[in-house]
């Protein structure tokens, strides 16, 4: 069943049961996000897709569309808040784009471009989180993790369904951990998929890197905005 909702003062037709973030994308309204993957269960961890729904700020990936819903996406105050959320992520970890292999394919970087971030107003923390290289085919650059939990929820052992990644500790001491035994059972394709699923340069494939030169990388060729509006899943 279809009904109309209002996004940025424009009436649009949406399908029942659809998530607000997908409904907006289908109607040409881009909402940046870092933890949501189209077609996969919602995580609601990053809050970067925050919009105003019927006057209250909420994450667009967590809201199923309802008839008559009034949504503000690009209203300046909400847009500024999303920008601040992204800027906070940049100061919380070590996001050294010039030295990162993921640069140009990194969703955090692409989202920062979309929200027109130039510098983070927050003090940079420069956390020290040790790199993990025990797995045969995966590097874990822990200081780049934004704790979106995509890998925790969506990358699992095929036989047992057991999680391979987990977050250890809380607050400033939190860090991403990997089950080396289960990770070593992953096929090269699954390792590649896990690295692609990571929205930052935290999960990296060993033995490959800098495949595409600058100008030909994923988001150089086609922006994140265009990819999302065209319904690409990752």
């Amino acid at each position, binding site marked *: 069943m279809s009904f109309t909702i209002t996004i940025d003062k424009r009436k649009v037709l949406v399908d029942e049961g659809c998530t607000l973030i997908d409904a907006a994308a289908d109607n040409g309204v881009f909402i940046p996000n870092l933890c949501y993957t189209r077609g996969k269960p919602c995580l609601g961890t990053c809050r970067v897709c925050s919009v105003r729904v019927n006057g209250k700020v909420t994450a667009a990936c967590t809201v199923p569309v309802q008839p008559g819903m009034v949504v503000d996406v690009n209203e300046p105050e909400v847009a500024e808040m999303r920008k601040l959320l992204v800027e906070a992520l*940049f*100061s919380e970890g*070590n996001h*050294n*784009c*010039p*030295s*990162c292999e993921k*640069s*140009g394919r990194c969703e955090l*970087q692409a989202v*920062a*471009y*979309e929200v*027109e*971030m*130039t*510098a*983070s*107003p927050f*003090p*940079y923390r*420069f956390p*020290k989180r040790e790199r993990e290289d025990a797995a045969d085919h995966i590097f874990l650059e822990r200081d780049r993790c934004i704790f979106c939990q995509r890998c925790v929820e969506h990358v699992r052992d095929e036989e047992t369904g057991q999680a391979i990644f987990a977050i250890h500790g809380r607050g400033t001491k939190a860090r991403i951990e990997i089950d080396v035994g289960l990770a070593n059972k992953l096929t090269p394709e699954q390792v590649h998929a896990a690295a692609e699923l990571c929205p930052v340069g935290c999960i990296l494939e060993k033995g490959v890197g800098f495949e595409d030169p*600058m100008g030909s990388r994923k988001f150089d060729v086609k*922006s994140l*905005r265009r990819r999302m509006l065209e319904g690409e899943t990752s």
Partner: protein
Amino acid sequence: MTLDSVPKEVIFSHDMPAKALDPELRKAREAKVQIATISLCGCWGCNLSLLDTDEALVDLLDKVHITRSSFTDIKRIPGQIAVGLIEGGVANDENIETLEHFREHCDILIATGACAIWGGVPSMRNMHGLEACLREAYVDSPTRPVQSAPVVPHHPDIPKLTKKVYPVHEVVQIDYSIPGCPPDGRTMFKVIDDLLSGRGFSMPPDFNRFD
């Protein structure tokens, strides 16, 4: 040694007697928008990016006059100017002095490049601490002359290192930032041209680059 303690008979290069400028040339220069650039703890790559605007730079020079910069080798900003471009982060007390001099004399101060914005490559020392870095470079260095005692360079004329490398906006108020390592020449040109034309600062996604 501070500037005040320099003996009176010492003449700085910017105080050297010079032939007076042709009055018309001086008038033409003063009519243009005055710009200054500097690199603090950076690699001068952002300044090179400004040169990388190629022929657009010729058009730009019709509208702006570059005062203090590496291109002109002028050491002090003469009076109040419109725009200052800062490259590099803050890593020693000389950087702080220069940055404050720029803030005092520039109406608009722009941080250019990753080092000015968040510390960049030099700020990788923040994860290890200053002492560990100096120890690695001068005491435990494999290339240190074995016959001499290990010495960490220290002299009143050598700027004191700050414990951490800081983004420039953590030291003075910064008006705008141009990301990139280095920023693209066309992005630098766009920002300056926008400001000169009264369009204000904007960094649309297709101009924004962090690497």
